[in-house]
C-alpha cells in the first residue's frame, strides 16, 4: 500500500467516523437527563392532576406571609431592624423599582395571581365536568386571593406579560370575578354530590375574599351581602411548616439579629391581641431598637391568656375569617346596635371602654378601624386597609414625621410597585 493510498483510506475512515458521530451518535452522546424538573408540555399529564389542582393554593400560601411581613414594614404596623438599606427604604416609605429586595415580593404576588389561570386551563383539559368540580372552584378561589394579595399591596401592575399596568381597582375587579366563579362552581359541585364540608371550605373563603374585594371597590352593599353568608366562626389558615414553607416571622424575630419591631401605634396597648417583648433590643442594625413582636391573635399558637408565645417556623396565619366578614358588615352598615355590640366585644378584649349606642358614624368608623387593626395585626391586611381608608375616608394612617431610629422623616409611598425586571421584560412598557 502506498503512502497516498494509506492517507486516502485513513481520510475516508475518519470522514465516516466523523459522519457517524455527527449524526446518529451525537444525539445519544449528548442526551442528558434532568430529574429535577417537569418539561412544560407534560404539565397536562393526568398523573399530575392532584398537583395541578393544588398549585394555586400552594403559590398563594407561599406568597401570603412574606407579603404580610413586607406590608407591615411599609404600613404603620412594624419597623425594620434590618441593616440592609433596602428595608430601611421601605420602612421610611421609599419604594423604588430599583430596590433589590422588591422582586422577592412582587414576583411572589404575581405568581400567586397568574398560576390560577394557568392551572385552571390545565384542569379543564383533564376534567370531564370542570364547571362542577370542587378542584376548579378551589383553584378559582385561591386565584382570587392571589389577585387580592397583589391588589392590596401594590400600586399599578400589569396583569399579563405583554400588557400595561392597571390600577389596583382593576386587579380587585378581576379578583371578584374569580371569587364569583369559585362560588358558582362550588355550588354546582355541591349539587353534583360533593360533601358539604369540602364545598363550604371553598365557599366561605371565596365569600370573605369577595367581600373584601367589593369593599375595596366601594361596592358596599355587595360586600355586606357576601360577608353575611360567612359563619362567624369560620377561619381560613395559611399553614406553615419548617420543612416546606416556614413562617418568615420566625427568622425575623429570633436569633442574634432580629429585624422587625412593633411600630409605635401598636406598642404597649396592654391588649392580648398584640404581643411584644417588654424591653427593646438592638436588631440586625445595632442602632435599631426593637420591641420584638410575639404571636398575635391571627397566629395559630397565640395564647389569649397573656403569655408571650414566640413565632415558630410552623406557626400558621389566619388569612380569611368570619371575624373579618363581621367587620365588613359593620363597616358597611355603620353604628347599628348589633354592630356597636360587636365592636364593644372587641374593645373589651383590649380593656377599652364600651362605645355608647349613640356613637357617631365617624367615631364608630374610627373605633372599628382601631379594633380591626388590632384583631388582624401582622396578618397581611393592614397595608391594603389603610390604603383604602385613605382613599374612601381621606384618613391617613401611614406613619409620618420622624422615623424612630433611622434619623429621617417618613416619605410618602403608600404601596409597593412593580420591579425593574417587569418594566424591562414587558414589551407594553
Amino acid at each position, binding site marked *: 500500500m502506498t503512502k497516498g493510498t494509506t492517507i486516502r483510506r485513513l481520510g475516508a475512515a475518519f470522514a465516516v467516523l466523523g459522519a457517524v458521530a*455527527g449524526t446518529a451518535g451525537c444525539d445519544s452522546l449528548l442526551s442528558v437527563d*434532568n430529574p429535577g424538573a417537569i418539561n412544560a408540555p407534560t404539565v397536562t399529564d393526568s398523573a399530575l392532576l392532584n398537583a395541578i389542582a393544588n398549585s394555586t393554593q400552594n403559590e398563594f400560601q407561599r406568597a401570603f406571609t412574606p407579603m404580610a411581613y413586607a406590608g407591615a414594614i411599609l404600613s404603620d404596623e412594624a419597623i425594620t431592624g434590618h441593616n440592609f438599606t433596602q428595608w430601611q427604604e421601605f420602612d421610611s416609605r421609599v419604594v423604588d423599582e430599583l430596590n433589590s429586595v422588591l422582586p422577592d415580593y412582587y414576583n411572589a404576588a404575581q*405568581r400567586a395571581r397568574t398560576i390560577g389561570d394557568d392551572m385552571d386551563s390545565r384542569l379543564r383539559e383533564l376534567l370531564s365536568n370542570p364547571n362542577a368540580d370542587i378542584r376548579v372552584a378551589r383553584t378559582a378561589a385561591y386565584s382570587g386571593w392571589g389577585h387580592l394579595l397583589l391588589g392590596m399591596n401594590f400600586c399599578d401592575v400589569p396583569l399579563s406579560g405583554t400588557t400595561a399596568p392597571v390600577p389596583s381597582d382593576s386587579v380587585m375587579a378581576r379578583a371578584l370575578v374569580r371569587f364569583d366563579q369559585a362560588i358558582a362552581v362550588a355550588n354546582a359541585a355541591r349539587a353534583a354530590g360533593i360533601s358539604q364540608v369540602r364545598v363550604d371550605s371553598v365557599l366561605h373563603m371565596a365569600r370573605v375574599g369577595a367581600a373584601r374585594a367589593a369593599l375595596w371597590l366601594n361596592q358596599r352593599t355587595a360586600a355586606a351581602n357576601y360577608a353575611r353568608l360567612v359563619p362567624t366562626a369560620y377561619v381560613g389558615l395559611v399553614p406553615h411548616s419548617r420543612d416546606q414553607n416556614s413562617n418568615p416571622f420566625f427568622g425575623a424575630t429570633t436569633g442574634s439579629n432580629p429585624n422587625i419591631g412593633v411600630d409605635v401605634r401598636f406598642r404597649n396597648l396592654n391588649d392580648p391581641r398584640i404581643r411584644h417583648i417588654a424591653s427593646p433590643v438592638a436588631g440586625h442594625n445595632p442602632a435599631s431598637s426593637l420591641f420584638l413582636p410575639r404571636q398575635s391573635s391571627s397566629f395559630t399558637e397565640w395564647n389569649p391568656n397573656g403569655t408571650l408565645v414566640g413565632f415558630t417556623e410552623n406557626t400558621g396565619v389566619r388569612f380569611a375569617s368570619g371575624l373579618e366578614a363581621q367587620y365588613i358588615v359593620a363597616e358597611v352598615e355603620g353604628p347599628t346596635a348589633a354592630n356597636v355590640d360587636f365592636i364593644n366585644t372587641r374593645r373589651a378584649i383590649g380593656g377599652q371602654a364600651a362605645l355608647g349606642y349613640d356613637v357617631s358614624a365617624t367615631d364608630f368608623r374610627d373605633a372599628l378601624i382601631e379594633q380591626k387593626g388590632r384583631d388582624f395585626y401582622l396578618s397581611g391586611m393592614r397595608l391594603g386597609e389603610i390604603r383604602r381608608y385613605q382613599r374612601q375616608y381621606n384618613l391617613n394612617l401611614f406613619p409620618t414625621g420622624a422615623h424612630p431610629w433611622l434619623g429621617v422623616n417618613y*416619605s410618602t409611598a403608600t404601596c409597593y410597585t412593580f420591579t*425593574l*425586571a417587569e418594566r424591562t421584560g414587558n414589551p407594553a412598557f
Partner: protein
Amino acid sequence: MGSSNRLRYALGGALVALLGVAGPLAAQATGTIRGRVVEGATQRPLVGASVSIPGAQRSAVTDNAGNFTLGQVPAGTVSVRAATLGYTPAVQSVTVAAGQTVTVNFSLASSAIDLEGLIVTGTPGAVQRRTIGNAVSTVNAEEITEVSPATTVTQLLQGRSPGLTIMPPSGTPGTAGSIRIRGTGSYNAGNFPIFYVDGVRFNAGSQGGYGVGGQSTSALDAINPEDIESIEVIKGPAAATLYGAEAAAGVIQIITKKGRTGQQSIDFDVKVEYGQDDFNVRTPTNFATCTQARVALATWPGCQGQPVGTKITANPLREPGILRDGGIFSYSGNARGGGERFSFYISGDREENDGVFQNSYFDRTTGRGNFQVTPSDALNITTSASYTKSYTRLPNNDNSSWGWLRNSFRGTPGFFNPASSYRVNWAGLGPDQMALYDNVTRAERWILSTTVNYQPFSWFRNRLTGGLDAGTRRASLFFPIDLTGRSPYGAIAAKGTISQYEPNTRNWTLDYAGTITPALSGDFSADLSFGMQLNAYRFDSLEGYGEGLTSNQTRLISNAQITDGFESFEERNSLGLYVQQQVGWRNRLFLTGAVRVDDNSTFGEDFSYETYPKASLSWVVSEEPFFGLGFVDQLKLRAAWGQAGNSPASFSADQTYSPSSLVLDQSTFAPAVRTSAFGNPDLRAEKGEEIEIGFDLGMLGDRVALEATYFDKTTNDALLGVPVPASSGFTGTRLQNVGEISNRGVEFLLSVTPVESPNFTWESQVSFSAIDNEFVSFGGTRDEPILLGYGGGVQWVEEGYPLGAYWGQRPRRNADGTLLLVNGQPQLDPERYNIGPSVPSREASLSTTMTLFRNVRLYAFADYKGGHYLYNFTEQTRTSDGNNYYANFLNPANNPNAAQLDPTGERWLLARFGGHTPWIEEADFVKLREVAATYFVPRAFARRMGADDVSVTFAGRNLMTWTKYSGMDPEVNIEGPATFTRADYMSVPPLRRFVATVNVRF
C-alpha cells in the same frame, strides 16, 4: 558508592523489577552517550533537561546533578540535542562506537524567546512555538516554586502572565479567588477559563458548601504546586478554537512533572516549609462619646466613671487572644527516575495552614504517580493518577452577621447590652460565640489520565487521551446545643443541628488527535491534523440535615429529632470534531487553518451545532536572508484570528415546571407544581471572535527579549438573561443570544538579563497589560442597565461601558454648597454617572532574580493593578452605624462641636441614605508580593551530608502595599470567586506570610 546512591539504585532496581519493563542492556551495534547539562553563565547543573537524538526515538532527562545517559545509541555519527524550558537548545554531533561510551557536555544559554520549545495546549499535538501564530504564555512552575512562597495554583499564576488577571481569594486559607483572561468576555456564561491537567478537563469551578458570608472553598487548591512542571496559558478565541464551545474565556493547561526516561537511577527531592501568616494590615478603630445618659447607664460600662464628653475607642479585633499567627507547615517529597523504556514520578505532600481566626484552617494531603512506558519506538503510554484530600474550616466573615470582622468593625466601644450583646465593644456575637462556628469541608479529588502516543509511520502521529477528574466533598456544619440559653445562632441552631452536604463532580475527557505529515518536496512542509473531543460532566449532591440533637457528642443526622434530605443533579455533554492544516515554508513561515464543529447538550432543541474557524500566521523573520539587524537574535511575527464558544449553563434551554409541596399542616403535604425556567429553545453558545497580532523578539545575545501582542476580541451573540416579567407567571431571566461585548488590549513581556557571569547573574522580567472592556450592546432587548453588586446596584451593565463598572449619583446641593435635604434626607441627582471599572484595566509586574557566587539567590516580585475602583462598603456601613469618626465626632447627636467640625455632616447622611458614591474609591495599588533569599549549600558540603543539593530559603509574601485606597486592602472582595460583584465588606485581606524552607535533593 555512598549510602544515598545505594538506596537510589536499590529503589531503582526494585521499580525496574516491579514494572518488568526494563530495557535490555546495550546491544552489540550500539553505544552509550553520557554527559552533563549546565547553565552557561553559572555552570549550575540544569535539572530535568531533555537530551535526545532527533529521529532515533532516544531521549533522556538530566538528574539532580545535570547528568544524563543515553543508551542503545546506534553506532555512527548522531546529533544530540539538549533542551529545557527557558534556554536556547543546543545540538552537538558525536560519533558513537559500538559498545563504547562517549561523553558530551552541554552548556545552555538562557533564552526568553524559546522558539524551539514545545507547546501542547491549543494544538493537535506538541508543536514548536515557532509554528504558532498566537501568544502562549508558559509559566515555569518548577522554577517559581523553588523561590516563591506560593502554595496554591492561584498564587503561582498571579502576575506571571500578561493578560491573566488574578483577583486573589481572601486571606482565609482554602478560599477561592477569581481568574480571567483578556478581560470580561461574557455576562452570563462565565469568565473563568477552562482548566486541563495533563490533557484532562479539570473542574475548577465551585463545588458548593455551606456559606460563610461570601467566600467559598477553592477547587484549584486540590493541585499541589510542587507537582507542576509548567502551566500553559492560551488567552482567547484565536488560540482556543480547537477547544470549541467552552473555551472563549481561554484555556489553562497544567502540565505535571514526569519521570526521566533513560536516567537509570532515582532522584529524591524533599522539601520542608515552616512559617506563618499574620493579619498585619491596619484595622479600623471604633469611636463613641460618653454622653450624659450613657455615663449613667449600666449598658455602657465603658462610660462608667468617665466624664461626660469622653471619647472612648476600641479595636476589638486587636484585643488579646482574638487573632493568632496562622501557622504554616508543609513537607513534600518526590522521587523520579526511569530506565531505557520507562520513567516515573511519584510524590507526596502535606500542608497544614492555620488561619488567623481560631476556627480556620486548611490541611491538604496529596499524592501523585506519573508513569511512562515506551514499549516500542512507535508507542508511548503515559498514565497519571493523583489523589488529594483536604480539610477546610471556614470562619464567618464578609456579609455574615456572625462574622469576626463585622462584629469587630461595627462594635460600639464601651457598650454592652445583656439582651443583645455578648462582649463589651463587640457588635452581635463575641469571639467565644464566633469561634464555636464549625463549618468544615472535606474534599477528595482524583485526577486520572492515560495518554497513548502512537506513531505507526514516521508521517503519522496519533494521540489519544482519556481521563477522569472526580471530586467528592463533604461539607459539614455543626451547631452544638446551646447551653447558655441565649441562642447566639438562632433558636433552631440552639437545639443543636448537623448538616452534611455531599456534592460529587465527574468530568470525563476523551480526546483524540491525529497528525499526518507528508514528506513534501522542496522547502515546504505540511501537517494535516484532525481530532475529536468528548467531554461529559456530571454533578450530583445529597444533603442531610438534622435538628434537635440529644447531646453534643452525637453528631449523626439520624440522631436528630427532625431530619431532612435534599438532592440536586446537573449534567452536560459536549462533542467536538476538528480538522487543521498547517503549511510551513523553510521552517520559518507557517500558515495554519482549522475548523471545529461543536454540539453541546446545553444548546436548545431548535439549534443543532456551532462552527468555529481559525487561521494564523507565524513568520520567523530573523531567519530570512534579507534580515539585517545584527543585534536581533530572533524575531517572530505572528497573527491569528479565530473563534471559540462559551456555552450556556445546563438545562437553561428547557421550559420547565418544578415539583413542589403544598403545606396542609406542619407535617402533612400534598403535591403541587410551580413555574420554574422559561427556557429558550433557540439557545446556543455565545461566540467569541478574536484577532491578535504580535511579535517575539530576542536580541543582544538573548539578553533582552520582548513579547508584544495586541488583541481585539468580540463576543457576538453574547448570552444575556432577558428579564421575564413576573406578570407572565414565570420569574427570573431567559437567556438569549443577543449581546455584544468587546475587549481590546495590549500585552508586553520584557525579559532582561543585565548581568550574566559565573559569580553574578541578574535577571529581570517586566510585564504590562492594558485592556479596554466595553459592553457594546443589549441587542435591543432592553433600555435599562442591569444592576449588580451590593448597596442596591452600584455596579451596572450598560451599553458603552465596562461590564460591572461602578456608577454613582451626585447629591443635590443648595446654592451655598450644602446638601439639599428633604425630610432630613439628602436628595440624589437621578442622573447617574459612570465612575469606572470594577476590575483592573492596567496591570504590571516586575520580578527580579540575582544569583551571587552561585550560592545565594535573591528574588523579588512586585505587581501593580490599576485603572479600577472598589466599593468600600465596610466604611460606608461603619459610617452609617455610627462607629467611626464621621458618625461619632461629626454627628451632632454625639458631639456638640460637630457643627464646627462639619456643618453638613455630609458623609454620615449619605452613608445612611443610599449615597454610596463617596465610598467608591480608586483602588490602584502596588504590592511587594514576594521576596525570597535562598542559600545553596556548597555542593561538596552537601555531598558530605549525603545529598546532591541542599538549599535554605527565607521568603515573604504580601509584604507591602502602596495605595490611596482607604480600606484595609484594595484586593479584597466580598465574594472571592464572583464574576462581577466587587465590594469591600468585612473581608479578610490577603495576609502577610513569612516562611523558611529547606530543600534537599539526593
